[in-house]
């Protein structure tokens, strides 16, 4: 019951944030200096052509009406057309977002699957060699720039060892269209094409390792410090005094209360990687939204920029909502008090 109330509160809060976000994005798009129509058409266009495009885009309307149209479009899933090639922005974003989402999802899973156990091991053998090793490794991962790692991996695994593919999502020879969810591995699974799933994973591996390293380092570090903090709590000593074995103390009594900080980090990283993946996407020729977003910015394609930012924002809010729910699930104090402990 209290969980439902907690959930409703969180959802309402997220909606509020989304409304705020749409206003901010709209305002910024209208405040940036320069006329989007002029920018799109270039210096050689005539004044009439510019005026036509402005009318087309509704830029000559009162600002409130423009915002109304913007919102109405959003509600229909219509993000307008690209100012450059007239393609609907929404469909470009849909295609590229799926690629980025698959990459980032896999990245986060890698970071979590390795970061948490490393952090637990470091805390369990605090100040002994496993801890020192993990700490050095985590720092190393956290400070290595993503593009450097991306190039290193590409050269090493791709060109020197020839064990993994270095560009794209699937071999060009493979005849497969990810047309259900847009995620190659998931669609391969849904269509019963195991060969596609395996190839998809092979293609995912290098870019996602390059992208995961920093996040994994962070998750390992925060898990370690969180575990060490919990280890010194009275309730851990109490469970020892009651004869609960160490294995249970570490993996049950310590890990669960320690789980909230890494979960929170995971949420933040998940959302910010969507935008920050562009370097890795460019290096590995990954047809993702992060790279698309950068291109649209360089080309000053206003509608596309707004679309990318809006989609990233919605994704950010949704991921955080999901994380809040998970945190509430892990820590009853949160869902009972309705805030983080």
């Amino acid at each position, binding site marked *: 019951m209290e969980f439902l109330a907690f959930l409703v509160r969180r959802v309402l809060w997220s909606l509020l944030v989304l409304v705020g976000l749409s206003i901010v994005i709209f305002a910024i798009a209208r405040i940036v200096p320069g006329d989007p129509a002029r920018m799109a058409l270039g210096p050689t266009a005539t004044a009439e052509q510019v005026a036509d495009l402005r009318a087309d885009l509704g830029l000559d309307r009162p600002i409130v009406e423009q915002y109304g149209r913007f919102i109405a479009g959003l509600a229909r899933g219509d993000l307008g057309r690209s100012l450059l090639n007239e393609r609907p922005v929404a469909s470009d974003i849909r295609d590229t977002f799926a690629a980025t989402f698959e990459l980032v999802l896999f990245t986060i899973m890698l970071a979590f699957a390795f970061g948490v156990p490393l952090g637990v091991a470091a805390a369990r053998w605090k100040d002994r060699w496993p801890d020192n090793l993990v700490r050095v490794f985590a720092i190393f991962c956290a400070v290595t720039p993503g593009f450097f790692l991306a190039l290193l991996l590409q050269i090493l695994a791709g060109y020197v060892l020839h064990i993994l593919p270095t560009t794209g999502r699937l071999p060009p020879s493979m005849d497969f269209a990810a047309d259900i969810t847009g995620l190659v591995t998931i669609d391969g699974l849904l269509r019963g094409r195991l060969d596609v799933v395996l190839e998809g994973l092979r293609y995912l591996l290098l870019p996602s390792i390059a992208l995961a390293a920093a996040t994994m380092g962070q998750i390992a570090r925060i898990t370690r410090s969180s575990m060490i903090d919990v280890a010194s*709590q*009275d*309730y851990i*000593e*109490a*469970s*020892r*005094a*009651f*004869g*609960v*074995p160490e294995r*249970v103390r570490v993996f*049950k*009594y310590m890990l*669960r*209360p320690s789980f909230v900080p890494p979960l929170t980090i995971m949420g933040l990283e998940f959302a910010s990687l969507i935008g920050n993946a562009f370097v890795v996407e460019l290096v590995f020729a990954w047809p993702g939204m992060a790279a698309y977003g950068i291109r649209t910015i360089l080309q000053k394609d206003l509608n596309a920029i707004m679309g990318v930012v809006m989609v990233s924002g919605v994704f950010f809010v949704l991921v955080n909502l999901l994380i809040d729910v998970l945190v509430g699930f*892990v*820590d*009853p*104090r949160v869902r*009972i*008090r309705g805030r983080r*402990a």
Partner: protein
Amino acid sequence: MSQALLSVDNLSVDFSTYGQTHHVLKNVSLDVPARSQIALVGESGSGKTVTMKAIMGLLRQPPATIAGGRIFYDGRDLLTLPDKERLKLRGTAMSMVFQDPMSSLNPVFTIADQMTTILKYADRRLDRQRNGRDRLARVHEVLTQVRMRDPERVARSYPIMLSGGMRQRVLIAMALLSEPKLLIADEPGTALDVTTQAQILKLLKDLVEARGLALLMITHNLGVVRETSSYVYVMNKGQVVEHRPTAELFAAPREDYTKALIAAVPRLTGGTRFGTAEVAP
């Protein structure tokens, strides 16, 4: 001496930190006969908790080392017992009541979860066969013994949903799970308000008497000593400086240190002017 349930004989414990050795316990001896109520009193830092941890086998070595002495439980020397045998006694034959009800329960698991887990591993150590449902029934049973009105609801609760007094009673119930013969209570209830603390001490005393347990009450409060013990050991700087029947000690304290302790501590009375205040969750 050998007929006592628990007997600490000339126990010395050192702590080494940063290359320095501190003699934290010096030749501490004390006896807890079966069904007796013994108090161990002393100011902060006098070594009460270290004594308790040594008895329970909870001292971490290093930094601690047992420099000398023996600890007998039921005639067996705990310090020479194999780890496995020793573990069989911890939380089962001898059990602890923890001091701070706010911090001694895991915040993210229900009371039932925490108590059945303790019971599960106690059962395993003692080769007792019992299934999950029987364990839960036992949990409800001990919660009833500590006078919970609605044991099933308490068992389903997370610690945060219970008042301080209720949590302290859960901690007592936890200690009772495996029917120990000896309860060691390190300052129980000092984190609670005076009224609730008095109720907790009364409950503990009643339980110990009704179930024929021995109680070692560790405290720095002579008011608690007077309420809960018949014999008292006074500790100062790692040594037992005086030990006598409680009534005698209060009538005529011998040591200046004891006199100072008695003078310093406000009386703790069982009843209260404000009536009984059981805080609803």
